[in-house]
């Protein structure tokens, strides 16, 4: 009986994952959001930028030490931030999920690890994480049911 429940749970979870991934409620975004980012060795402040899908995000970029880069995974953004200058870059947050912001200019020892995060929510929810979390629960239920059914 429990085996059936676990299997049913696995299928139900997978169903939710697909529903979560493909369900597209109207984006709550659409606003213009200005984000001031200060780059320094070896971090961006703030490190995590959270916006809603559909927002137009205006990044105002400055550096307090050496030249840094500002590259966002999955978004066509790669600009150089030079000391003493302010750079502005505008991004339409059209794809939900978590995207790393990376330094694209060699800036010192920990340069390859200088990252930030650009998180685009759909209806206030990180839909990619939620879908993956449900997927992981589905894996747990399916694997549990599988090994139990097979015994040893």
């Amino acid at each position, binding site marked *: 009986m429990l085996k059936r429940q676990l299997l049913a749970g696995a299928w139900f979870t997978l169903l939710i994952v697909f529903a979560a991934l493909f369900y597209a409620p109207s984006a709550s975004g659409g606003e213009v959001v200005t984000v001031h980012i200060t780059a320094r060795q070896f971090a961006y402040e703030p490190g995590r930028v959270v916006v809603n899908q559909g927002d137009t995000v205006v990044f105002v970029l400055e550096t307090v030490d050496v030249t840094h880069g500002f590259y966002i995974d999955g978004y066509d953004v790669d600009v150089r931030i030079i000391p003493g200058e302010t750079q502005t870059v505008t991004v339409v947050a059209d794809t939900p999920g978590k995207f790393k*912001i990376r330094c694209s200019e060699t800036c010192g020892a920990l340069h390859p690890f200088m990252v930030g995060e650009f998180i685009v929510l759909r209806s206030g929810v990180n839909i990619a994480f939620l879908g993956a979390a449900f997927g992981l629960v589905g894996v*747990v239920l399916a694997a549990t049911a599988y090994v139990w059914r097979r015994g040893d």
Partner: protein
Amino acid sequence: MAATRWHVRDFFSSLILHRGKFDLLQIGIINRLLKHRAFQYAAMMVNLFVFWVIILSGFFGSPVGNRNISIVFVWILWWFALIVLMVPLLSRIWCTMCPLPAFGEWLERRALVKKRSAFKYLSLRKPWPSKLNNIWLQNLGFLAIATFSALLVTRPVVTAIVLLILFVVPVFLVLIYSRRVFCRFICPVGGFLGLFSMFSALELRPKDKTLCRNHMTKECVRGNDNGYGCPWIIYPGGLERNNYCGLCFECIKTCPYNNLALNLRSFGGDILAKTGRALDEAWKSFIMLTLAGLYILVMQGPWGVLKDWSNVFWAPPYGWALTGVGGFLPYVGIFWGLSLAVTPSVFFLFTGASKLASGVRSVPLKKLFIDFSYELIPLALMAWIAFSIPLLLVNWSYIVNALLDPVGLGWNVFSGLYVPWTPLIPAVIPYLQSIVLAVGLAYSIKYSYRLAKQNFPEGKAALKAFLPQVVFLTFVSMIFLWLFMG
């Protein structure tokens, strides 16, 4: 042709379909290659050359890590190849070709390739202290090196110094203790290679253990004209796990009955092996699982303060001023505390819950704690693979440029050719990491249940004991998933 088809079918059958094992020594060229005395020597020589280029480049090349071959080759290319390809597929094949013990081994044997028939080892041949006959030194050594990893993986000179030390130490150890005591008991890489090789799809095993038991002269231990006795101080005729077999293939050369097989097998074949389980290996699992999370958090996370703490020496732009001790001490505390105390304690609580849930009192809690710790191996390995994926996909262009200008001093060997930094499918990386994590979780769940069945063979006790473990594994996986996608 038919024989080749047969090999291919058996190969995939053993690896993918989990049906039986396939002995790679059946393939003539592999058999001849591994029995040839020059094979290991040649492999070590190639890496010896590369490592010395790396060391020299570390000392005399550019101080900028991503422009120096010592950082780019070791901490991007070698690390990725080791953890993503070599360990899961080929067990400790890195130990076959690792150049670190080369000088000591050649000195002790007074030979490079040939097996000398009558000679005296250049070593005092003292016995290794029995209290250190475990991997605790490797556990602590790895933690110590990991604590300084922000320096190690970004400063070429630090990498060069550490490699130089790792070249010198085995020579002294060989002169006192002989053979590969460094690889077996000290090498900080060897500890986790041994643990993760339990999951590997390759194993070296005796074909017929009875034959080995009844064979009085034990050439695999003592050596003969064809090869040396096992340098790793194990009895190849009794091999049941990969952990401490460094795949030097001396036993293949010395066995007069060709009684050894190099098997392809399903992943995780050693996790259920009951022999050799101990607390030192359990703690290795906790350390590896915890450090995977901490590395992702510190190196690939957006929290600048953690990077500042980890980066004990730093001053712009590439200087050496000691400015970070105030943060480094709590960082050390977090690293060591989480790895050695917090993770094991939480796991202990879940193991206690497993015992309570099973309703069986006769199984000692310590045994259960040790046994269940082996379920963490697939998850920890996959977490490290997930950590390593962006290292290569994001930084691959550094490898190409380092090849063109190995020391980063502007010697571009193909003048004008330069590959700009271009991450490969960066937006897909979190999804790849999540899939890899899910594979590790599924394997961990599979082995968790089987470990429960080993301890509770009767009735439904195994299932009841298994469920708290599933909760723990899911909890840990969710933390990793949040780091990747949350």
